[in-house]
């Protein structure tokens, strides 16, 4: 029988200040408008002759944005420095690839298993790493990435397809639709995945789980002393992030009709990192904006071929040091100042002020040791 | 020796010192008294460049050192014994002392300077090989003082020597500071605790909410009980 010390202050209870609260109700109009726009876009684009090209670009944008958002959820918000995101994407891709290719399952069924296995893999990595400090998580997740890559290249034939990955995987059966028509259906499928992921991530960030994850990032010892179960919160966050990353992996395997071991190349890792860093580390809109910029940049820079990775690497380095908050906070603040409807304060994106610089990347904030 | 004119300084967003004027003469012992949290530590840290100076000037022996980096100021002979000692925890007592004599010319004569500090604090020599983190509160304070003496100091700034020490140990620390002063060293001491500085201070400043409100010879100010009571709470 826990002692019910009802704290009945003589003072009146103040009204909650909605702007300050971590929960956030998005006006239905905004959500409805965005969805409507998403649905209309392919119909509008059909008229343009490069419309089909733009639709494929948007599909790529949706999938990249899902993975970037998922990675930002654990690294930006949760302060978990994991480099396993690409490997989890691959786990999703290979799961549905193998099920569809080797066992002949219908892609619509097998794709559902992609996120499930990716989440299982995340729980497998998470168990040993999530009790550890930042630096070790970097190591273990990088090692998992390497292990997955080696397994994919010289694993059993039905996995490695002779070292180049699965090259002949069935695409989504969409009746006899072909060409632009088929692309539009694929677009709506991608929009659904992107919409689901964005909605869930928004809900998580603005929920107790999100507040607990950011609390752990700001000061692990302080958060744990306020009842936050560090292991449980981080595991749920890790699993959520892996779920959507795996789903995107599954979708892309069937969209491209295969998945190659080149998915493990470092350039994929830097693309994702660039999206988060350029967009806005630890903010909701950052990765989405970043995905749009990086994909747009890719199209523009395609002319310079190999210089793209060089340019991207340098841009990431420069922005990480000189504009750590990324572009999204700048746009959001401008949006608030001039247009105003959106509440002024979101969980500020800038890296947390560590009260004690001895802590690992997640910053333990409070000194241990003799008093 | 040290002159501070109209010094304003503070941390991101909040200004703590609003225009402070202060002087320390050659071989003089000056104490800045004031309640906790009113800017004593900020004043010392602004003088040695650890805190950015918003306005005003800091002049050491005629040279304007306001914008200099802390390590350049230290090399210029202004030694600061920080609040809470800030020793190098995983280095031995001897290594901590040697770091005091880091700057160029002093390093050459480090052995002789080490000998001098060992004579002043004999037990430091017994513990030379011990890691600093294993020392007790009083021992740490003496090591911090010793480390400051290793440098070629023209003036020593000491921040709250009695902080967190049992009063019995504090007596010893102030006795050591007295011997340093008798050696002709100019001193600027920041302290919350008035009753130990009697033998040390030639002049006393009272600092309240970032402003020096009273200045005068130590004898006169320290006797004024009502004054002390109101400031030191």
């Amino acid at each position, binding site marked *: 029988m826990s002692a019910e010390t009802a704290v009945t202050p003589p003072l009146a209870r103040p009204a909650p200040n909605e702007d300050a609260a*971590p929960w956030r109700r998005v006006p239905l109009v905004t959500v409805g408008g965005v969805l409507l726009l998403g649905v209309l876009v392919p119909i509008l684009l059909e008229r343009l002759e490069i419309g089909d090209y733009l639709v494929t670009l948007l599909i790529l944008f949706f999938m990249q944005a899902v993975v970037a958002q998922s990675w930002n959820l654990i690294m930006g918000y949760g302060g978990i420095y994991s480099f396993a995101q690409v490997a989890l994407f691959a786990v999703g891709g290979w799961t549905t690839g193998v099920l569809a290719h080797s066992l002949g399952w219908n892609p619509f069924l097998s794709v559902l298993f992609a996120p499930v296995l990716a989440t299982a893999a995340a729980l497998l990595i998470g168990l040993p790493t999530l009790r550890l400090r930042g630096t070790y998580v970097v190591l273990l997740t990088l090692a998992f990435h390497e292990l997955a890559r080696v397994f994919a290249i010289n694993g059993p034939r039905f996995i490695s397809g002779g070292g180049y990955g699965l090259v002949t995987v069935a695409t989504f059966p969409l009746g006899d639709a072909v060409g632009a028509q088929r692309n539009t259906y694929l677009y709506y499928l991608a929009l659904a995945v992107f919409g689901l992921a964005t909605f869930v991530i928004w809900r998580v960030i603005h929920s107790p789980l999100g507040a607990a994850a950011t609390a752990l990032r700001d000061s692990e010892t302080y958060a744990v002393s*306020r009842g936050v179960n560090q292991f449980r919160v981080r595991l749920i966050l890790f699993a959520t992030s892996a779920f959507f990353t795996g789903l995107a992996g599954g979708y892309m395997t069937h969209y491209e009709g295969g998945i190659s071991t080149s998915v493990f190349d470092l350039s994929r890792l830097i693309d994702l990192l660039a999206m988060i860093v350029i967009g806005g580390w630890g903010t909701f809109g950052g990765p989405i904006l970043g995905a749009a910029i990086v994909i747009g940049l890719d199209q523009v820079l395609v002319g310079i071929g190999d210089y793209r990775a060089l340019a991207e690497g340098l841009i990431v380095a420069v922005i990480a040091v000189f504009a750590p908050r990324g572009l999204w906070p700048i746009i959001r603040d401008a949006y608030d100042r001039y247009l105003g409807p959106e509440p002024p304060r979101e969980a500020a994106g800038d890296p947390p002020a560590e009260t004690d610089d001895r802590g690992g990347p997640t910053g333990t904030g409070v000194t241990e040791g003799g008093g | 020796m040290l002159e501070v004119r109209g010094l304003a300084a503070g941390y991101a967003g*909040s200004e703590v010192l609003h225009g402070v004027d202060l002087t320390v003469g050659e071989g003089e012992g000056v104490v800045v008294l004031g309640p906790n949290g009113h800017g004593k530590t900020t004043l010392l840290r602004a003088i040695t460049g650890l805190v950015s100076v918003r306005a005003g000037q800091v002049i050491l022996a005629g040279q304007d050192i306001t914008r200099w980096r802390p390590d350049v100021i230290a090399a210029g002979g202004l030694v600061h014994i920080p609040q809470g000692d800030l020793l190098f925890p995983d280095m031995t007592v001897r290594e901590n002392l040697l770091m005091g004599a880091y700057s160029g010319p002093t390093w050459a004569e480090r052995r002789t300077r080490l000998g001098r500090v060992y004579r002043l604090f004999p037990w430091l020599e017994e513990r030379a090989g011990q890691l600093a983190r294993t020392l007790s509160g009083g021992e740490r304070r003496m090591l911090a003082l010793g480390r400051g003496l290793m440098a070629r100091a023209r003036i020593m700034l000491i921040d709250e020597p009695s902080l967190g020490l049992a009063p019995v140990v504090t007596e010893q620390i102030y006795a050591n500071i007295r011997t340093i002063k008798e050696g002709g060293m100019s001193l600027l001491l920041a302290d919350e605790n008035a009753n130990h500085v009697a033998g040390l201070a030639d002049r006393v400043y009272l600092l309240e909410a970032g402003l020096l409100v009273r200045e005068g010879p130590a004898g006169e100010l320290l006797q004024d009980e009502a004054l002390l*009571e109101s400031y030191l709470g």
Partner: protein
Amino acid sequence: MTQPGPAGPSPGAVADGGPAHQVPILECAQVSKAYGGLLAVSSLSFAVLPGEVYAIVGPNGAGKTSLFDCISGVSRATGGVIRFRDREIQGLRAHQICRLGLARTFQTTVAFDSQTVLANVLVGSTFGREGENPVLSFNAAAREAALDALALCGLGARQAALAGQLPVLARKRLMLATALATRPSLLLLDEPVGGLNPGERSQMIDLIRDIARTGVTVLMIEHVMKAVLALAQRILVIHHGQEIAQGPPQTVLRDPRVIEVYLGALRPMGPDAEPARA
């Protein structure tokens, strides 16, 4: 050992020096903590009675914060038993101990700097209590507890401020508010008036008195005697992690050992700063 009576604002316990028969809310028996050979806390034993304000006094480096770290689960005691409401907690993790109703503040004022004041307190009210903690929405009880704690600590009007940009006193109040939001029955305060000027100090003392009046038992570490004398019914003086004396402040401060080790030249019972001797 029967479950102790409700630790609500039982008038009896608070007033006098703590009657003998009262069952303690917190009991430490031979608690020790060693950091690589250095014995920070050496077999301390004491008990805190429900509803009282109990202070642990001693100079810096006497092992006070290490003791708090062991009680609150931030670090593990290397010896001895800690019982909270008749249950051994020295093996539990920090979040489990908090959810049993034991909340603490820290010597270095800490906050979730990137979040607003309201979000800070909501973390405590949502996760700090026993029972299922919500994952997707902040339930009404959590919101109310948070707002009550903010009101008690005088932060009701600053809910939207970012914790990282608050001045020292407000950050200390926020840390206290997040602790109260977990509706603790025992509150551990680590140097609540440290780093405050006299004005702010008396504000904090009044705030702690209000909190104690709501029935929360307070265990406090402090070396500012003014605050200890103003608040504590009983005190424990420790030095180098060992107990020197324990009991009501008036008798303890006259104990010769305490004077010799801790107070030194200060007259016992004198106010904190003594007028200068010639």
